[in-house]
């Protein structure tokens, strides 16, 4: 029962954040200089007649008082209607939907690669003096390297130098390797650092000493007993994960000329296509809220002590 209340509160908080996000997009549209009706008709050069503008204003409800516009804005978003792209003249949700699969593929591949690298490095080096110094330098370099430059270096070496992998997207699995790696390495650097520090703290705990005293090997102690505890801070960093993957996808997709939401977003920013930009941003807030909700549930699984606390 307590668990249910906990989940209920979390759901409510998530809805609150989404409401705030939707309000923010309304404010942005409302306070952006320029006439939205003109933008709908086709930008500054289109020179529409006053009749056309009036028709658009009526159609989009731009002639109604702001409060009505706000309510209908929220109403439409709640029903999955994010408006129409100024540039593509298609619904924003459709434009995003067409690109979503490519980005999800990239983000999932990068998240798994990053997590795997971080866990492997942290497990291998935590508490081992000779290795941890080296690992911490590697992590610092990886975390400090901008995604776009890492991609250029990877392309220089693997695509144009060794000619092992394709330089652009759309060629199946082979064209996913470099972008995923490019997105994963900086994430692995940050996560590896956090995970190693957590592992080192856990390895000092009495229950680890007792596990060792029972004759368990070092590997078993690390894998079966220490790792589970050390994973908690990684789960806490969800915001960083989601942000790094989505922000990184924007850069990675542009660099590798891959299809995806990130590249869609960049072209929308260049075209001042506000509904599309705000649609992507709203979607990312939704992903953030959903992932956080999932994490809260995951906490209850990872750390059963929270069930009583919640």
């Amino acid at each position, binding site marked *: 029962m307590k668990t249910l209340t906990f989940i209920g509160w979390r759901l409510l*908080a998530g809805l*609150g*954040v*989404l409401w*705030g*996000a939707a309000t*923010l997009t309304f404010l*942005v549209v409302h306070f*952006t200089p320029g006439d939205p009706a003109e933008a709908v008709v086709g930008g500054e050069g289109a020179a529409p007649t006053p009749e056309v503008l009036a028709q658009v204003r009526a159609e989009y409800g731009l002639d109604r008082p702001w409060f009505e516009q706000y309510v209908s804005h929220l109403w439409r978003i709640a029903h999955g209607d994010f408006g129409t792209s100024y540039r593509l003249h298609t619904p924003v949700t459709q434009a995003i939907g067409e690109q979503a699969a490519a980005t999800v593929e990239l983000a999932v591949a990068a998240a798994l690669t990053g997590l795997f690298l971080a866990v492997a490095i942290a497990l291998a080096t935590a508490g081992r003096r000779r290795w941890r110094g080296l690992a*911490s330098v590697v992590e*610092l*370099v990886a*975390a*400090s*390297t*901008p*995604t*776009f*430059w*890492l991609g*250029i*270096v990877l*392309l*220089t070496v693997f*695509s*144009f*130098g060794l000619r092992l992998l394709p*330089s652009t997207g759309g060629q199946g699995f082979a064209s996913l390797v470099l972008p995923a790696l490019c997105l994963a390495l900086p994430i692995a650097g940050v996560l590896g650092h956090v995970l190693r520090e957590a592992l080192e703290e856990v390895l000092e705990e009495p229950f680890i000493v007792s596990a060792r005293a029972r004759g368990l090997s070092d590997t078993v102690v690390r894998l079966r007993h220490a790792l589970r505890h050390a994973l908690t801070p990684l789960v806490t960093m969800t*915001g960083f994960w*989601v*942000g*790094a993957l*989505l*922000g990184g996808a*924007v*850069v990675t997709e*542009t*660099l590798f000329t891959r299809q995806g939401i990130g590249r869609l*977003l*960049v072209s*929308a*920013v*260049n075209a*001042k*296509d*506000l509904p599309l*930009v*705000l649609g*992507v*941003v709203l979607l*990312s*807030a939704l992903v*953030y*809220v959903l992932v956080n909700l999932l994490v809260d549930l995951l906490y209850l699984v990872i750390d059963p002590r929270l069930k009583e606390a919640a």
Partner: protein
Amino acid sequence: MNRIGVWLAVAVLTVLVLAALVPGLFTGQDPLAVDSGATLQPPSAAHLLGTDENGRDVFARIVHGTRASLLLGFGAIAVALVFGGLLGLAAGLGNRIVENVIMRLSDVGMAFPELLLALVVITVAGGGTGNAILAIGVANIPSYARLVRAQTLAIRRAGYVEAAYALGLPGPRVILRHVLPNAVKPVLILATIGVGTALVAGSALSFLGLGTPPPEPEWGSMLSTARNFISRAWWYGLFPGLAITLTVISVTVVGRALRLRSEGRTG
């Protein structure tokens, strides 16, 4: 992190600040001088790090680009510190309603990835160095508001602040003389590390063609053009990015060392 590493990082940062202030100290070449007879030349004695597609000296462009790139990092954090700091202070010192409003707003802000929030600002305000600084700065306001609030709350409950109130000092004076100075130090230390991430985010905007516009030299925008010449000019894509990475590493190392010192530990 050992001592040598920290001093190396300090040395790198000193050189960078010098290059930003007086680029002429490091190179005599003009970063904008086009030489159509020497395009995409590999590194040589005449051009230490080679030339770009217009025959401009890559080293000179990196040196002259230091100012714009550092400005992106420091400027954005300054924006975030000022506005986030004021909000955080208000949340930490104000009544429950003020605190709740500010914190729920920052919850909303935190739901957006930094780069995406910055892109919204760019869509509305347009590109360019100034707007890129503003965009990254705005995107960082929620996290600094939280940081400053946490600091303020901790200090507000500290003995010396309660003592100052008990002595009958007026509220504004306690805030200015006792709360603010003590809250500033740890926040500034964390902000040092933040400069590195802001610099990466800012040069990412330039890389996407939304920050510093060409031909003005800036590391991110150099890489944006270099991307088209990866197959022919490895030096063009390598060195500007090396400059960014080296800067971020140095800033991070110095920031971490400062934090350890303020916590009374030596790394």
